[in-house]
């Protein structure tokens, strides 16, 4: 992710301690200290409340090290590939099997 500072409105990808799936939500509050350290609060656009319920016990803010990246665009339906492969692992095996078969049977 770029070194640009985190600003309100940006959609960030972050991990919460204890949760395996990262969350992609918008930054609604930023408090940047003199030394560059930043406290950030996020919220899903269509959610009623902010993400404090999703953060770790007692955690009120996210810091820079929690944030893994930013969203810059949108590709429709691409996420479904990951979702289907996670929910029906057999599809993952079929796909890898088919690719492997193609590689083996290739005459080049």
């Amino acid at each position, binding site marked *: 992710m770029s070194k640009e500072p985190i600003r309100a409105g940006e959609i960030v990808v972050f991990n919460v301690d204890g949760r395996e799936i990262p969350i992609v939500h918008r930054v*609604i509050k930023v408090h940047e200290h003199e030394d560059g350290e930043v406290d950030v609060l996020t919220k899903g656009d269509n959610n009623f409340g902010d993400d404090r319920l999703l953060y770790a016990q007692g955690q009120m803010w996210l810091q820079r090290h929690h944030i893994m990246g930013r969203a810059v665009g*949108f590709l429709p339906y691409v996420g479904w590939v990951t979702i289907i492969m996670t929910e029906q692992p057999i599809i993952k095996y079929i796909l890898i099997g088919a690719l492997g078969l193609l590689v083996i049977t290739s005459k080049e």
Partner: protein
Amino acid sequence: MHSFGFRANALLTFSLTILALMCAIASISDNLNSPSPTATVQILNVNRFQKKSTGDDEVGFTLDISADLQSLFTWNTKQVFVFLAAEYSTPKNSLNQVSLWDRIIPAREDAKFSTRIKNKYRFIDQGSNLRGRDFNMTLHWHVMPKTGKMFADKLVLPGYRLPESYR
């Protein structure tokens, strides 16, 4: 070279490439749009200005937000997310951005609006630095495309000031 597998593979790769190209063209067409949004924000009343028991200042406003964001919409726009943030600096924090209100605008017709509301999210400082504080009201908008690059911009409305004392 003529097996089912190879033909299926070629078809899949070709269709994915075409889809990617269409997505890129749709996204680039958004750059042809030159938006001209307008907005005004008025603080109608400061309802509440207190130091909380945690030691942090909190302000509650009634605001009048009027904007015309219709020019942001293109055929490739899914929705526009708009929010109003109070932006200020204090001796403790070099930058504070606190979102006060936001809305999802699903279509062009809904993009011209005027609303009178209390701040949706609480305006709480880290510390007790808000008395007499000058701040900007910045209206941010994020245009979310049906496909492709998102783009964001803002309108800075400077010149607001919080009261000198609690009420």
